[in-house]
């Protein structure tokens, strides 16, 4: 399965994932506490510089991911135009862009395996308490394995629907789809059991 990690290798790819996540937490809290327009402008400019540092391809990929925010930015723009509070609106809009941009930056520069290692580390106290985290790690692998498989089967269902119908497959296709997931769960449980269970 394709992860959202950027194929453009940056220096940040090699930084420890835990440190990046901790820094993101702190930065997000600071962003939500700060109210000054100058501060938010400066932080946003710094963010753009970070995106630009690894090159144009990385910058464009990063900006593309911020595009999903446009409906919210449009609402903020209109709202504060009407209420005549442009400075407050600019702070909210910049904070939104920076917070999402920073978080995306961590995702783009951290490999899936490093993220899973952080989760394993975070789960250490649970293991100390004697709880098994093997089931958690196994479930993560299972979801990664089964999402494309389910999606492919859904596609096949839609195809066999279209082969016999002129109309688009609607909600009715979700029942067989959910049945597939339930039956797959039985097969997986069996395959797990065949190799020693959990």
């Amino acid at each position: 399965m394709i992860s959202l990690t950027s194929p453009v290798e940056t220096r940040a790819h090699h930084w420890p994932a835990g440190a990046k996540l901790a820094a993101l937490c702190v930065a997000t809290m600071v962003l939500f506490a700060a109210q000054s327009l100058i501060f938010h402008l400066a932080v946003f400019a710094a963010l753009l510089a970070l995106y630009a540092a690894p090159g144009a391809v990385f910058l464009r990929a990063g900006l593309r991911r911020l595009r999903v925010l446009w409906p919210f930015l449009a609402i903020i723009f209109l709202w504060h135009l009407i209420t005549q509070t442009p400075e407050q609106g600019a702070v909210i809009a910049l904070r939104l862009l920076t917070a999402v941009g920073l978080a995306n930056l961590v995702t783009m520069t951290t490999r899936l395996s490093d993220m899973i290692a952080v989760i394993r580390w975070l789960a250490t106290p649970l293991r100390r308490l004697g709880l098994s985290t093997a089931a958690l790690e196994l479930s993560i692998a299972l979801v990664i394995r089964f999402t494309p498989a389910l999606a492919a089967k859904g596609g096949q269902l839609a195809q066999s629907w279209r082969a016999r119908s002129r109309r688009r497959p609607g909600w009715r296709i979700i029942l067989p789809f959910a049945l597939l997931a339930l039956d797959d769960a039985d097969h997986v449980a069996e395959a797990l059991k065949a190799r020693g269970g959990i």
Partner: protein
Amino acid sequence: MSLDAPPLLELSDVALAVDGRALLQGIDLSACERRIGIVGRNGSGKTTLARVMAGLVAPDRGRVRIGGVDVTRDRKAAIRQVGILFQNPDHQIIFPTVEEEIAFGLGQLGQDKQTAAAGVVAMLERFNKSHWAKIAVHTLSQGQKQLVCLMAVLAMQPGVIILDEPLSGLDIPTRMQLARYLEGVEATLVHVSHDPSTLSSYDRVIWLSDGRIVQDGAAGEVLRAFTAEMTSLGGADDISDLAG
């Protein structure tokens, strides 16, 4: 092997019913041949028998022992004795990448991460598939997935491998290639199939019908009788008979 050693495969009076319908009844079997075939029509109980032998389904009555291990009760010992290859590799593969899939079983045997990783490398090398290690399973073809399943089972080195029609649904060249891989397997194979031709070179063949053993003996003899019966049924119209 000494003469009084217990047979590798031993089923005594195995019976199983699901929702009041008898799927297996009075199955007695004791075998130590290296290649054992099980034939029967769809719904004859072949797949159920395969699952019972692998210890995945507990019979209502009777016992299944493989290499002296009660495979239903002692799961920990069972996975060292018996492996199973399902008909559909998508039902078998649990992990996103080839190496994770093979490593899982080794971890289940108690191997640490390094040993398991070395086992994966060795298994892939044995089949000249070292370049498959990091490949995402869902990008492989059906035959390639089936080979991954076979490697994952072989890596655990069970004495007996049960094959539940793993060759059906594959094209002829793929089927021939996989059959060749299977021929080379050291372990005892119990191959469930409805296609007599795949079992012609086997040491012993068991014919199953309505959950009972109809005939048990040398491959040539049993397969001839089975084929004759199937051909005569092919001329009839029992497709309309409902089970139950």
